């Protein structure tokens, strides 16, 4: 299974763009990359998913280089409510098991 590595924590200010990078050097051909957000005492919430290149939705963008060994979650103009833990998940759909890494604790300051 592809192991993921993320920064433990990041600080930002309201209104800034935040980029969180995840390394997944041994990602397999069939693996997808998914990002989740988790607030205290809540379940992980799906943000965005991609396989290659760039994906954008109403809340975030996901950049995946050609070698797929890393991915970057981009949150435009963060607010205080974006303070949460962000997890990168590389999904093994062949084996139907998905492991979370340690996540990145994002702290947005006023």
């Amino acid at each position, binding site marked *: 299974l592809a192991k993921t590595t993320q920064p433990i924590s990041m600080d930002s200010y309201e209104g800034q763009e935040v980029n969180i990078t995840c390394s997944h050097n041994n990602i397999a051909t*069939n693996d*997808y990359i*998914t990002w*989740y957000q*988790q607030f205290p*005492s*809540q*379940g*992980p*919430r*799906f943000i965005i*998913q991609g*396989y290659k290149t760039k994906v954008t939705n109403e809340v975030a963008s996901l950049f995946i280089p050609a070698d797929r060994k890393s991915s970057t979650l981009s949150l435009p103009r963060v607010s205080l409510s974006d303070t949460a833990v962000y*997890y990168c*998940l590389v*999904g093994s*759909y062949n*084996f*139907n*098991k*998905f*492991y*979370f*890494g*340690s*996540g990145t604790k994002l702290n947005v300051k006023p």
Partner: protein
Amino acid sequence: EPEVTQTPSHQVTQMGQEVILRCVPISNHLYFYWYRQILGQKVEFLVSFYNNEISEKSEIFDDQFSVERPDGSNFTLKIRSTKLEDSAMYFCASRGGLPGAPLHFGNGTRLTVT
């Protein structure tokens, strides 16, 4: 938007007792999962379930744990003889059948073993 629901939100039990945590996955989903999160730690995979049988399980999922889909809507996790170290948030998740379909999580059951 359809969501995964879990009951109860909080369960307190005494050590050695059996508990059953319940989940209602999203209705057209085919794959089901249980995860746990000990306070302050990361989310840990326990088990995946498809076509009425376990697909994969982690080393955490030992003989004291079992899962069941007793009817067409519920998905349960049973812990046979709870230990203090079983105290954690337990999250249920489900996903659809298309390749790459993401997991959708419930808001969890907080299990406290005293």
